[in-house]
């Protein structure tokens, strides 16, 4: 059947079972928007800024198993989207971003709203395409979805010139796609897996170090089975939270720059690290040379070979999909597993470290941010989707909200993008329409995508915004306090809006909470009485609160700064 390029775009999305597209129209994508108008299978979510469209599509994907799709126009539409694309790329989120482009015969002539989309996005996508001929459109979109979702997932950009969306050709959606240059490994090498299992049995001080790959490959259940079988301690990275139940006694907490004392000590002094879908990055192990001082063996399972032996030397590399590799490991352990007796002593040591209670804090006269997150955890029964922005509040949310399930914790771990929290909450809500969603943020981050309160009104999204307001760019202030002799350069946020009135002006509910005793009742009210409303909860918190423990940049994992009195 002959179709225009725009019709083909929509048909391809339908074939891929896409239900939601987050986007913003403009000149180059008008043909596509016209086709969107003529159908009702795909719902379009109109955001207020392209950055938010991509963030929302990203969180849509993170919080479900679906592929997030964003649609933006050429030029500024694309450049606005870049932050969102880079954010998704750093955290390996499968996503397809469709971009309008000026007509092929204008490309390269500095046309109105022209930019080199493929060039600009190249370093922050898994792959990108410029479709120059309508005949290539269907196969390119098929490839885009294939590449985004297989191997190490990531965002794929498809740049579509306007004339391509107007031109016609015969449409047939390819059922499968074969690419000789792209064949990601799935199954791990059995010999390597056997070697790993052997090392597990010999380990005296083992640790399972589980990253975002556990969540991405839906291997959380497999990991739990494996950890139970082995009886080893498990530590999660920031991206891995929820990949192993936080409330399980084998979980020693998050590790890294703001990891728990026991997690960092366990990681550092382990004689065997089973690294699963994690990448030993600077925020996790600190100084790699300090980390390398301790002799140990490392088994590293990752779908991306380039993540292995990048920052630390690995003894047993296993390239493969985590789900499949863990499945294979479990099969090998079917006849039972006997850990080295020394592991019992190791656990005694870990319990001693745990006894330091490194996340302890004192709730005084002012509201402590930790307290708000703890109460949020209680009020939501630990079962909400939590998105966060970037900064102190992000770390407090990660430390004090105990995630027992994967895909519940949605944050920008790799790129560390302020402003994601609210659009993330939108994306989560579209993917999980009946679930409670809270966005833990600060007065700095929330203002970076505050315009989305309007989108939230249009689509009646009952997000709870937990604004931990200290009038400071808290993490910047913390570093300035600790490493810049308290020279608070530009970290004080003045002229803040009245967030209650701001929320109300968008048609939402606003609350200002200033006393510790009001925290819990306010949260309860927000999640019950205002269950169906967006509630902007402005918590005025202790401006001096800092995130501890802390491994300063460039320091070793055991060189932690603990909270006062610990």
């Amino acid at each position, binding site marked *: 059947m002959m179709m225009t390029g725009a019709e083909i775009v929509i048909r391809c999305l339908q074939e891929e079972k896409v239900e939601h597209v987050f986007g913003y129209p403009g000149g180059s994508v008008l043909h596509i928007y016209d086709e969107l108008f003529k159908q009702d299978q795909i719902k379009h979510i109109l955001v207020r800024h392209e950055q938010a469209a991509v963030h929302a599509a990203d969180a849509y994907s993170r919080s479900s198993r679906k592929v997030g799709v964003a649609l933006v126009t050429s030029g500024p539409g694309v450049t606005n989207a870049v932050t969102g694309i880079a954010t998704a790329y750093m955290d390996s989120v499968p996503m397809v971003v469709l971009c309008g482009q000026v007509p092929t015969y204008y490309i390269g002539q500095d046309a109105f709203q022209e930019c080199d989309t493929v060039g600009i996005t190249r370093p922050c996508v898994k792959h990108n395409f410029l479709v120059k001929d309508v005949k290539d459109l269907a196969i390119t979109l098929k490839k885009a979805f294939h590449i985004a979702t297989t191997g190490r997932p990531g965002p794929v950009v498809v740049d579509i010139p306007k004339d391509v969306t107007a031109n016609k050709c015969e449409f047939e959606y390819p059922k499968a796609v074969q690419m000789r*240059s792209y064949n990601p490994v799935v199954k791990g090498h059995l010999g390597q897996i056997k070697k790993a299992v052997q090392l597990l049995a010999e380990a005296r001080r083992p640790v399972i170090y589980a990253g975002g790959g556990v969540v991405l490959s839906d291997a959380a259940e497999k990991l739990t089975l494996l950890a139970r079988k082995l009886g080893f301690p498990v530590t999660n990275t920031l991206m891995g939270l929820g990949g192993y139940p936080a409330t399980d006694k084998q979980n020693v907490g998050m590790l890294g720059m703001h990891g728990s004392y026991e997690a960092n000590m366990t990681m550092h002094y382990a004689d065997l690290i089973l690294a699963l879908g994690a990448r030993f990055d600077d925020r996790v192990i600190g100084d790699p040379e300090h980390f390398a001082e301790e002799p140990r063996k490392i088994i590293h399972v990752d779908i991306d070979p380039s993540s292995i032996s*990048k920052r630390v030397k690995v003894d047993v590399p296993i390239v493969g999909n985590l789900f499949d590799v863990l499945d294979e490991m479990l099969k090998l352990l079917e006849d039972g597993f006997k850990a080295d007796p020394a592991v019992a002593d190791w656990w005694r040591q870990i319990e001693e470290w745990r006894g330091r209670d490194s996340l302890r804090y004192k709730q005084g006269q002012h509201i402590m941010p930790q307290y708000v997150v703890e109460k949020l955890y209680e009020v939501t029964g630990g079962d909400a989707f939590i998105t966060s922005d970037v900064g102190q509040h992000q770390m407090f949310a990660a430390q004090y909200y105990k995630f027992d399930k994967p895909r519940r914790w949605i944050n920008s771990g790799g790129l560390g993008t302020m402003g994601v929290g609210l659009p993330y909450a939108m994306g989560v809500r579209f993917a999980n329409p009946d679930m409670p969603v809270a966005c833990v943020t600060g007065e700095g981050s929330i203002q970076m995508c505050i315009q989305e309160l309007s989108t939230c009104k249009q689509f009646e999204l009952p997000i709870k915004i937990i604004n931990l307001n200290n009038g400071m760019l808290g993490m910047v202030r913390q570093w300035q306090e600790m490493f810049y002799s308290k020279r608070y350069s530009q970290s004080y946020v003045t002229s803040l809006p009245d967030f209650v009135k701001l929320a109300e002006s968008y048609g939402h509910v606003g609350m200002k909470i200033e006393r510790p005793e009001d925290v819990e009742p306010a949260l309860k009210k927000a999640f019950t009485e205002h269950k169906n409303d967006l509630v902007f909860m402005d918590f005025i918190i202790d401006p001096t609160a800092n995130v501890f423990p802390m491994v300063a940049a460039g320091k070793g994992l055991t060189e932690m700064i603990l909270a006062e009195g610990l």
Partner: protein
Amino acid sequence: MRHIISVLLENEAGALSRVAGLFSARGYNIETLTVAPTEDASLSRMTIVTRGSDEVLEQITKQLNKLVDVVKVVDLSEAAHVERELMLIKVRATGKDREEMKRMADIFRGRIIDVTESTYVVELTGTSAKLDSFINALDAGLILETVRTGVSGIGRGDRILKV
């Protein structure tokens, strides 16, 4: 350590920029880079000369393999191979230098491919080191212009890089 990496990649617009961008973004060094389509026009073959420790080289090959357009990557310098580079060098050739230039070209098995009253263009093929030696052997004041292709390399014997 100097390495010669051969890359087979899809002959598509932008494929070169993906490789070049990867090297600059990750701070890898490129000494020379050559690229042209192979006998199968849908594929390009690229030869990259780079330097780095074993760890860096491991990352370079892994990162190249990760590019969606890349079909195959081989580090030629890991085994027996031959490498050649082509140079065209324009030299002043007047008076007594005219005869000397001809002699030097002969010694290095170069060919003079353009002649004017005052200049020669010498075509010289060999390893990069041989081309360097030729340049060093000439009086620097007589060199007017040089252009080099960068290294092309191929494995010896049964070592074949093909889809």
